[in-house]
């Protein structure tokens, strides 16, 4: 008697489970996103990564969802905090794939994280459109992980952009051969500085001050004093978020007398201008955007409206574009089959806020490399296959 009831119950439960999961699968597409909300990279991820995921999911669902082979599917977002810890990220990625069974994923935030998680996402066949990942090892990586795509440029391209500016300014007579260069002693800063030493030397520049400092250095004044002492008219810093702020602060304090001032990541953050206002006018930084482009302008307006935050002037647009690529590939391939979607990304071109993007050897060659704060807007001055670059202006004091 008891056994029979139990069996009956089990049947009902199974039927219900089948039914509900059936309904579920019909109109929901699960997207997983893992990125830092805490830890060292959180400050950057909450500016560049998370708001764009929020914006995209919001917009797609407001449109009624994704049209997958004639069926409208709403996005269900599953998000986790990797605590800026690659081990944690890999654990969570495993969970996304095996327990949450997400259909697709948003690529991680940070170069190291994209490289560290490529094997696990590759194992489950997720197409991975990396944005916040800059390296010269793309060819090697994409050969090993055919599901991995890069969209924000290479280390060399970033250094190249800065080198071009230095060469132009030397020709114009505003700087000499001397360059002061500092870098954060972290994989990212070291790789960029190494490349810069080669490229600067090849153009005949003399790096008269060349120092690194540890991540999270509480006092950058010795660094800035040293750079000032060197007398170079060009200052280049391969820096990370907290120190990009710290270096600018010290440059203001020391009244660093240069015509070219460049700091890397976070220079393009709205907060950078929010804090220092007109004092950082004509500061150069990694990234850039063309705010006059109608697509970018519309994107930035939607970003502010839906997330309540101003998009940064660099990778925000690329991050959104990567999500648009994923969206268009799913719709275009008309399936949730990950291999088909990955192949679709390789074979097609996509209409995004960054313009028409397509991949050659899993690499999209459309990106900004250097931008400059010009009267409250960070505008692109150097880039690859992008339109609307403005002329570089000289840094003229810190008032």
């Amino acid at each position: 008697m008891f056994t029979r009831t139990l069996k009956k119950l089990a049947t009902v439960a199974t039927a219900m489970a089948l039914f509900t999961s059936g309904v579920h699968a019909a109109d929901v597409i699960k997207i997983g996103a893992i990125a830092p909300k805490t830890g060292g990279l959180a400050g950057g991820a909450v500016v560049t990564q998370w708001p764009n995921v929020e914006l995209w999911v919001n917009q797609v669902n407001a449109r009624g969802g994704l049209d997958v082979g004639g069926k409208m599917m709403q996005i269900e977002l599953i998000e986790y905090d990797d605590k800026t810890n690659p081990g944690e990220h890999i654990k969570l990625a495993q969970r996304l794939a095996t327990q949450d069974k997400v259909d697709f994923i948003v690529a991680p935030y940070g170069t190291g994280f994209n490289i560290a998680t490529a094997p696990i996402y590759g194992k489950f066949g997720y197409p991975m459109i990396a944005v916040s990942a800059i390296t010269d090892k793309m060819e090697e990586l994409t050969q090993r992980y055919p599901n991995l795509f890069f969209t924000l440029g290479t280390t060399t391209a970033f250094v190249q952009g800065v080198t071009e500016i230095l060469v132009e300014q030397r020709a114009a007579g505003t700087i000499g051969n001397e360059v002061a260069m500092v870098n954060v002693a972290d994989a990212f800063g070291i790789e960029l500085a190494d490349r810069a030493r080669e490229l600067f030397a090849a153009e005949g520049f003399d790096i008269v001050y060349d120092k690194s400092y540890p991540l999270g250095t509480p006092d950058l004044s010795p660094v800035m004093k040293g750079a000032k002492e060197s007398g170079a008219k060009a200052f280049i810093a391969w820096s990370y978020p907290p120190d990009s702020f710290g270096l600018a602060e010290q440059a203001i304090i020391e009244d660093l007398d240069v015509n070219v001032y460049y700091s890397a990541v976070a220079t393009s953050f709205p907060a950078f201008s929010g804090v220092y206002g007109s004092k950082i006018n004509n500061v150069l930084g990694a990234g850039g955007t063309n705010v006059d482009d109608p697509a970018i302008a519309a994107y930035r307006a939607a970003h502010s409206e839906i997330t309540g935050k101003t998009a940064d002037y660099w990778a925000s647009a690329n991050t959104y574009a990567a999500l648009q690529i994923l969206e268009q590939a799913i719709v275009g391939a008309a399936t949730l089959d990950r291999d088909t979607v990955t192949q679709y990304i390789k074979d097609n071109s996509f209409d995004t806020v960054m313009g028409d993007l397509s991949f050659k050897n899993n690499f999209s060659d459309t990106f900004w490399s250097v931008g400059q704060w010009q009267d409250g807007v960070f505008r692109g001055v150097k880039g690859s296959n992008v339109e609307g670059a403005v002329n570089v202006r000289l840094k003229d004091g810190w008032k």
Partner: protein
Amino acid sequence: MQIIDILISGLLLSGTYALVAMGLNLQYGVARIMNLANGEVLVFGSLAAFWLYTSSQISPLLTILIVIPISFVGNLLIYNLLLAPLVRRSKSRGALEVDSILATFGMSFILIGIMISIEGGFFAYKYLSEPIQILGSTTSLSRLVAFLIATLIALVLYLWLNKTRSGVAVRAVSVSTEAAGLVGINVPRISAFAFAIGGAITAVGGALISTFITLDASIGVVFTLKALIIVIMGGVGEIRGAIIAAIILGIVETTVATLVDPGLTLAAAYFIFVLILLFRPQGLFGRRNA
């Protein structure tokens, strides 16, 4: 010229380090709580300063006056609710250390979570970052102000601990809880008080530091580590030791950054730390077998 630069920058950096470590020194030395959430309490002070400044233009120097009572009461509650039970049931100092490390480590995540829900990005703002000249060396007004307040706190703390009756009671507890109890000192109350004062000093330090360092909710652990080094270098429960250790660290890091390479500052700091552990394991001012 360079020597003046090193001395001025180094001393100002020492002020920052003293602000980071004085609170932990009281908490660890007197209340015997190895507070791993020390950095988070500091960042809380920064968040308060940032938040009040950007939302209602309240000067961080005024924020301090708000931060002191709030962090004092907050830390008192944390001690009484979360840590006092651990103190009561611990059989030895070692057991209490392990328990308090685990409890405060957990607490640090809760604090980070709360702070992230308030502000997930950088606490970026600017206050008093005007250049000033001291003996021909350029520095920022905000660092000088932080240094002066750090000096004031250290002085008041020193006088209180050494010249007042309640200060003597605090020092007695730091030397021996059993003996202090035997002579009629209310050990649990003094411990709670020391823990709360320590927390308040740390939070004030955070508010001051945020005027010249851009922090975010997750950066606390960096400060906890620095504070640990300074407290252990100086000698547990010794304010003088913490201050001397902060000065040594500040001057050495600045010297190395200026004359050798800024990349070696951390290495230099840990090198000195190791030297002190090797040759004076009880810390500069610490008592043997304490």
